């Protein structure tokens, strides 16, 4: 009586075709993943739109318009958001004309590009650090990938001034196409770039394929307080695991 009014519910015959369809989709997806991992990914190049200020990059920037700081080398970098507290060493070029990087056996250390502007001077200050080293696992700039726009970066100078920056962009570039004009170009105010490695690791060349560049712009400076000076640095032990 009750059963005759209800439409008969028969799950059994519908199960097999549905399962077959689902499994076929999974099979196709798995084949796609396998194929995709073997076939190299085509690299896309975004069209470049020229800036109207290309003819005069100083149109938006006046290096003498404000009194920026004088030259003084940075000694440490602090990024509280991702627990980076690193000492800085001076970097130039290596014998091949490529950027010098901190020593592989000093994973806790980052370096600053000495020929360039110092923090608070007009122009881009460039800091490089390893994402990992051959042995230590994660190194000083491993956490950079977790940075967000708006995070604060602090650079302490030899003269005791702390210059603060705000992250404005995080970009990845193929190493042979690093845009020097963006990375080493000026902004209306002193700027900071943090460079580390990203992308895939090429075992043949022993190097990563991309550079991760964090762009940050000047927000101000202050004198280091006692509290600032007592902040501990992350030593080599921090990266031993």
């Amino acid at each position: 009586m009750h059963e005759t009014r209800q439409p008969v519910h028969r799950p059994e015959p519908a199960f097999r075709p549905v399962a077959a369809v689902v499994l076929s989709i999974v099979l196709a997806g798995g084949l796609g993943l396998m194929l995709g991992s073997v076939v190299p990914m085509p690299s896309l190049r975004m069209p470049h739109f020229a800036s109207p200020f290309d003819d005069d990059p100083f149109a938006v920037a006046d290096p003498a318009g404000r009194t920026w700081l004088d030259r003084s080398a940075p000694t440490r970098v602090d990024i509280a958001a991702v627990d980076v507290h690193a000492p800085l060493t001076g970097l130039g070029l290596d014998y091949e004309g490529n950027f010098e990087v901190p020593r592989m056996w000093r994973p806790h250390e980052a370096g600053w590009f000495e020929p360039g502007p110092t923090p608070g001077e007009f122009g881009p200050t460039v800091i490089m650090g390893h994402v990992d080293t051959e042995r230590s696992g994660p190194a000083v700039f491993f956490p950079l990938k977790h940075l967000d726009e708006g995070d604060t970066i602090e650079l302490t100078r030899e003269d005791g001034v702390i210059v603060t920056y705000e992250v404005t962009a995080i970009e990845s570039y193929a190493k042979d196409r690093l845009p020097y004009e963006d990375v080493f170009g000026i902004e209306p105010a002193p700027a900071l770039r943090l460079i580390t490695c990203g992308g895939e690791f090429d075992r043949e060349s022993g190097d990563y394929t991309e550079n991760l560049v964090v762009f940050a712009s000047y927000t101000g400076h202050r004198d280091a307080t006692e509290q600032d000076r007592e902040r501990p640095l992350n030593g080599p032990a921090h990266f031993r695991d």
Partner: protein
Amino acid sequence: MRITRPIRGMLAALSLSAALVLATAAPANAVITVTLTPTAGTIGTRVDVLAANCDQDATGDVEGTDVSFKLPKNDNHALGDFTVTEKMEPATYTVAVTCGPDTASAKFTVTAGTGASTGGGSTASQAATAVLWSGAALVVAAAVGLWMLRRRDGAAA
């Protein structure tokens, strides 16, 4: 009145000359600063050079090379550019700007043009291999599932 008028005149002349001295002194005292953009680059890079507070046409030289360039006056700055030539080996060069009796300089670095080798690879996983194996796992699971469906079909029939 007769006494005060010359004094007034003197005062006026004094303040006028003081104002003139101050007005001319300010730019003369302002330090000429040279700013480059970009500050590093490879062969073929155009480097723009600004000599701030240089109120006349200036000339620039890349020291240690035969590259020199003009910086025409532009407002109260001098503005020019040079291009990194093939003769410039990777190194850091001093770009000196001569503005009248004054000189100022900034540093430019010529590099081989690549990025920075900031990694040793110890945290790198072979992403492609991982994807390959997970794809293979999915294929195997799906194949086993389909095979089981077919077996049941056969048993039922």
